[in-house]
């Protein structure tokens, strides 16, 4: 039973446009959410996070939005660049789970020049 779902395995976007990656979760106890980025032949790297007390967190071109009532979060990349092409993992954690994050299966983003 997947508690963190990334329903789009892949996304293709034109350079300069907005990329929107989506993530849904089922466990209402999750209170901290993260996005990781992974290039081929490398390990995932932390990108951005958000606590459940907020609904938005911004870091440069990356913004994460959290909709707790819908149990949904999204990562916006504006403007998208070819170097953003990677696999993006959504993760969620809860105090009850010792804050160990549960990862989604990832979405492969391709940004075309």
């Amino acid at each position, binding site marked *: 039973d997947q508690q963190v779902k990334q329903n789009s395995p892949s996304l293709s976007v034109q350079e300069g446009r907005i990329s929107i990656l989506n993530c849904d979760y089922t466990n209402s106890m999750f209170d901290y959410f993260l996005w990781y980025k992974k290039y081929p032949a490398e*390990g995932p790297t932390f990108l951005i996070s958000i606590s459940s007390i907020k609904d938005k967190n911004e870091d440069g071109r990356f913004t994460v939005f959290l909709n707790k009532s819908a149990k949904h979060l999204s990562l916006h990349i504006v403007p998208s660049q070819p170097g953003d092409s990677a696999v993006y993992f959504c993760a969620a954690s809860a105090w009850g789970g*010792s804050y*160990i994050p549960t*990862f989604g299966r*990832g979405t492969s983003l391709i940004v075309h020049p």
Partner: protein
Amino acid sequence: DARVTQTPRHKVTEMGQEVTMRCQPILGHNTVFWYRQTMMQGLELLAYFRNRAPLDDSGMPKDRFSAEMPDATLATLKIQPSEPRDSAVYFCASAGRVIQTQYFGPGTRLLVL
């Protein structure tokens, strides 16, 4: 530039052989994780340690997998005997005070024939 290192980077072996993967966490990080990435399951947590003590290995097939931390600078994951279904990329990650912000190694790509 502190980073998690993993050896070997690639391993090809025959079914039934023992496989040992090694990880050196970032100095000062007290939590170490082992993950497995497959196309079907995404990033699965196999086991994790805090202060070298195993806290959860429920994600591991107990009959063939074992994880240890003989000292603070070395974590090992062993598979004996290996099977073709174990073919995957195995990641080690470490974390300091903020356990959700994990630093991943480059992974060991395992192929069991």
